[in-house]
């Protein structure tokens, strides 16, 4: 009885040793080939796994002559409102393989991912000029306006805005970012936004002057002269009424000024007649300045 028991034990030990040895062999052969060849085994439920590689500041790839960084600043991530969401919640096309070779339109993928949580905003966006009419190549994604890893991040918006306007509050900072944000595609509209009280004040950091989206809407963006039935014609009475009490149609006669102040000014008869004088004065000033500069370098 005792002999039988010990031989059974020995047999089990041999099986165990063989098992461990073969496991070690497989692992070491994988290790020897490449650190990346395996099925993805790092923790991906959170983000610590991804950051094993992506927290390396030198992580970059040369693509079509451009050095594209794949570095993710954890500090920025931590300051974002999405800090508790796993990487894969947005990067839904992750291939569970390394390196992630699959061609991915990650911007598009990410914005598609937004709708999983932000359904209403997405519905409005997709039926707006931005979501449906803008040419595919230029179509703004969620991240295009809201940012990505730093989304809603106090740190990032504050830094950006304090650089821009010397503002310290994140809300003010976001409010004032319209000129840059929308200006990337709508340069002419942001340049011409310089009327009294609204545009000129906005560009000079007035926290209560309307940002682009205060009149044009945000997710369901309004083209003011939009003829597309899918985008409702902007109701100006309603738009101006957000700030002005008692708006009626007669109040709207001001609206051409909002993006047209420069044009209206330059077409003014009196301005056109005094223009030669002011130009001459400006020229004389320039001449005097250059003389002064050459005399006192």
């Amino acid at each position, binding site marked *: 009885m005792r002999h039988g028991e010990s031989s059974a034990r020995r047999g089990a030990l041999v099986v165990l040793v063989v098992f461990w040895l073969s496991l070690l062999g497989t692992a070491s052969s994988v290790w020897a080939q490449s650190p990346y060849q395996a099925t993805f085994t790092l923790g991906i439920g959170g983000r610590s796994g991804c950051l094993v590689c992506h927290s390396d500041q030198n992580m970059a790839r040369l693509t079509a002559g451009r050095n594209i960084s794949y570095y993710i600043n954890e500090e920025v991530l931590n300051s974002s409102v999405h800090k508790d969401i796993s990487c894969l919640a947005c990067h839904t096309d992750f291939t569970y393989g390394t390196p992630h070779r699959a061609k991915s339109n990650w911007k598009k993928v990410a914005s598609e991912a937004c709708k999983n949580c932000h359904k209403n905003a997405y519905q409005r966006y997709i039926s707006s000029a931005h979501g449906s009419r803008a040419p595919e190549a230029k179509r703004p994604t969620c991240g295009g306006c809201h940012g990505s890893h730093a989304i809603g991040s106090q740190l990032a918006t504050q830094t950006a805005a304090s650089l821009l*306007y*010397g*503002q310290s509050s994140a809300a003010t900072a976001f409010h004032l970012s319209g000129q840059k944000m929308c200006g990337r595609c709508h340069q002419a509209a942001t340049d011409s936004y310089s*009327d*009294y*009280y609204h545009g*000129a*004040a906005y560009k*000079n*950091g*007035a*926290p*209560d*002057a309307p940002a682009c989206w205060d009149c044009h809407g945000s997710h369901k963006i309004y083209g003011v002269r939009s003829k597309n039935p899918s985008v409702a014609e902007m109701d100006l009475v309603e738009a*101006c009424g957000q700030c*002005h*009490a*008692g*708006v*009626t*149609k*007669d*109040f709207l*006669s*001001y609206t*051409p*000024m909002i993006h*047209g*102040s420069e044009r*209206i*000014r330059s077409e*003014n008869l*009196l*301005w056109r007649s*005094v223009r030669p004088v002011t130009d001459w004065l400006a020229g004389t000033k320039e001449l005097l300045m250059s003389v002064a500069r050459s005399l006192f370098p």
Partner: protein
Amino acid sequence: MPEINVWLDMIFTTVFVLVVIVFSVHLLFNFLTGRMYRRFVKGEWPTHDAPLRMLPKFLHFQHVVCMFGLAFSGMYIRFPFFAGGRTAMRYLHYFLMIVVIVNLFARLAYAFVGRHKDRKQFTPTMRDVKVAPGVVLYYIFMRPTKPHVDHYNIMQKLVYIVFALLLFVQAFTGFSLLTTVFGINIQPLFLWWTGPIGIGVAAGAAYSRIIHYIINWVFIIVTVIHAYLSVTEDYPAFTEFFGFGSANYDFSGGHGHEPAAHGAVITGHGSEETA
């Protein structure tokens, strides 16, 4: 509406520049006709027969400060000429508008009640009207002397009365631009007239703003003239009014408004040229 606003900017800037040019020419004539020489070198200044009192001087000083602050902050609200000043300039305007209104009422109280009430100094009389052409001719160098029948000449009287009236209109139009004050909707108080003329409240406020802006320019232009004349016509009184000098006094009588001079036009006073 946009065109009106642009026109106002253009018209008033042009008028302002023209006024500066006209008064520069006026200053030149002051030199050419020897008026400046007689005043600043020989010390021939108008004489005052009553002391300039402390309270009006103080109120005037405060008034000047307020008006400068209001014009500056108001212009900033319309033309934000530096970054980040909106909130500060608004509150500066809101603060000074209260001070200036209190000041206005204080000055009116001083003028109408109390021992030193001086409203008569500001009331135009028939004699003022009679000598008005002479006053104008003096200022445009068509006449060597200024008719002198009262403490203030007719142009001063009119300007000071207009200042007070305009300030009331300015306060009214200004308040109509505020929708709520401490959570209370004050529009019914200042925009009640929009209903009867059939426009919306917001449009009414826009018209108020236009009037407020016009008066702002009237103040700026008239004050520039007022300050220029106060320095060039009666520098000693100017220094005394701002607390760093003394006006020229002559308490021996002989002023145009003395009983002896009733009906007469007294000339050859103080700085005036001898023909």
